[in-house]
């Protein structure tokens, strides 16, 4: 009798949402977002949509790119199917409002992680691991003969409004006391159209974005990136502060892609590795990572083999990088800071323990 009453009290408190983390007997997690996504049967992912290498629509009408592959990995891990994603193109001013209002579940849109965007008193985002370490650069026509920031004195510079880029530009130019005129546009298309229309002598943005956009110029070779790097731009997928369990799930799916590269697990050999893990009981690390033993998936509210599903869908982090922005792509970007930590880069997954 007493037990019964206690239980009903607990249940009613749970129902009132007063007891945080009372998950009942299941041992899973309470994530409103996760149950919304599984109920809906698809993930709604906010992307840039017009940025070659990161997120753009390919010739067959499908979304491609590094940011898109993150969406696909999450969809594969949560729903078991990388194609169950609905993409929303968001411009730089819409993105945070779309995430905050719940219009998109996940923002994978070359967004720089900053304090004010992370803080609860600012934009209140919750950032996943950085998927691309970038820096702000400046693109100028080769014919202009401009070699550094000083060469931009008195000139007009095109920039997308509402970006960290806009602020960094103001800061760097002020530091060096270089007068300039900013010309701001709402979308990257307008920004680059004005640059190609010769309205501004330079355009500034993340170096990866400049390299990506340059591939779609009429004459890519007529434009050059200045050597200057004006800022740190860790481009990072984000969710809201409102649902920590969902943020954790996204965080560890992304770490899973990075750990897979470190462990030598690729899209091609993931099935063989899984069989290997199942056969050898002494390979504890691999068994836990691929969900053969332990309950990592359950702790996150995901299927036990979420890493296998994600890697099978899009490959490991290195494969995603190479395919979209690396040597195998039109962008031909160097891995640079985005190498694994063992190779002197910044890609580092905490242990799956």
């Amino acid at each position: 009798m007493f037990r019964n009453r206690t239980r009903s009290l607990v249940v009613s408190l749970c129902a009132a949402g007063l007891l945080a983390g009372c998950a009942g007997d299941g041992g899973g997690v309470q994530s409103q977002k996760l149950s919304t996504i599984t109920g809906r049967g698809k993930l709604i992912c906010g992307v840039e949509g017009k940025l070659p290498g990161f997120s753009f629509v390919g010739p067959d009408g499908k979304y491609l790119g590094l940011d898109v592959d993150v969406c696909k990995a999450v969809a594969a891990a949560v729903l078991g199917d990388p194609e169950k994603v609905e993409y929303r193109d968001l411009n730089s001013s819409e993105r945070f409002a779309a995430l905050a209002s719940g219009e998109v579940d996940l923002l994978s849109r070359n967004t720089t992680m900053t304090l004010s965007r992370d803080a609860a008193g600012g934009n209140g985002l919750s950032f996943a691991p950085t998927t691309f370490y970038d820096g702000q650069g400046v693109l100028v026509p080769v014919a202009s003969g401009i070699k550094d920031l000083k060469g931009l004195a008195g000139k007009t510079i095109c920039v997308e409004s509402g970006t960290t880029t806009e602020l960094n530009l103001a800061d760097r130019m002020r530091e060096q006391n270089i007068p300039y005129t900013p010309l701001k546009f709402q979308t990257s298309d307008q920004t680059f159209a004005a640059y190609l229309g010769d309205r501004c002598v330079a355009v500034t943005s993340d170096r990866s974005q400049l390299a990506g956009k340059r591939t779609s110029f009429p004459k890519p070779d007529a434009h050059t990136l200045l050597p200057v790097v004006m800022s740190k731009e860790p481009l990072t997928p984000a969710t809201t502060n409102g649902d920590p369990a969902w943020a954790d799930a996204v965080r560890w799916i992304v770490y899973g892609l990075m750990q897979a590269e470190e462990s030598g697990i690729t899209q091609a050999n993931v099935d063989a590795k899984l069989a290997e893990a199942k056969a050898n009981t002494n390979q504890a690390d691999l068994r836990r990572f691929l969900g053969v033993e332990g309950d990592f998936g359950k702790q996150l509210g995901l299927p036990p083999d979420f890493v296998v599903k994600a890697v099978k869908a899009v490959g490991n982090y290195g494969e995603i990088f190479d395919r979209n922005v690396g040597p195998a792509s039109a962008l031909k970007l160097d891995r640079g800071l985005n190498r694994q930590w063992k190779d002197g880069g910044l890609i580092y997954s905490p242990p799956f323990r």
Partner: protein
Amino acid sequence: MAPVPPADPAPRPAPPPSPPWWRDRRIVPWVVQAVVGLLVLLLIAFLLGNLVRNLTAAGLLLSWRWLQQPAGFDISESVIPFNAQLPYWRALAAGLVNTIRAVLVGLVGATLLGTLVGMASFSHNGLLRRLARVYVEVVRNIPLLLQLVFWYFVVFLSFPNGVAAIQLPGVVLAKSGLYIAGFGEGLRWMGPTLVNGVWQAPVRLSVEFGALLTGLIVYSGAFIAEVVRGGIAAVPKGQWEAASSLGLSWFATLRRIVLPQSLRVIVPGLNTQYISLAKNSSLAVAVGYTDLYSVAETTLNQTGRAVEVILVLLAAYLTLDLLISALMNGLNHLVQIRER
């Protein structure tokens, strides 16, 4: 002898029993009004309470401290002095001044263009008449945003740049803007000069401003032309005939006889067009002109104070439009016929 008391007056018919209060015509309307009023108040209270509750839960309760923080971004053209160290409210003010500048010049331009085209549609010259029709029909049936993008990217950005710019005495029209001679530093007369590949002049109008202005004037001009046409058509034909029998020319008839009378039909319609123009100016962000909306957008992005910034925007545009409306209503009052 005691006086005889006066006879009782004839008994009055008893007053009809007063109806119950719920059928009383003096009470019922008041009760209904009170109930409806209460419901409206409750609805507003619920919505406001909801807003405050949810904002508090999200930790976003209205706060205005951010207005004092340094903006950190630059504004390309500002009438009032501005730099990145100044606070957000100065940035918003600079944006508002830019908006007002575009709206004021736009109003004057659109009125002139609209009046001319409206008059042209009554011309004896068939070509002029048809041109006016074509202009109105083409322009008012294409979305303004599209027209702005056309004016900016197709027309204004095809001007030559640098030394190749179109140069007239005291005036240079380049891709970066219109440069006009004027009194520069130390009140010395200065013409446009090319410094390090960039034109400099005391008076500079950017092409972004030019494109926005052209777009607004051409678009609103078409609607105003229709309002003017309607106003002129409302003046009885006899007025034209009387004027021409006095030997007045077509233009003099229009200017002296018809237009003054048509004003009372035109002004209310004009009010609507003016307000539209003020609101349409917020499309400036598409052509890179830093108006209030553009500044507010950057501010919103950087501070994360969405509700506050939108409230500022709402209040600014509402005030601007109410001001225009009040002025036009005053004008309307002036041109109406005085009944004597």
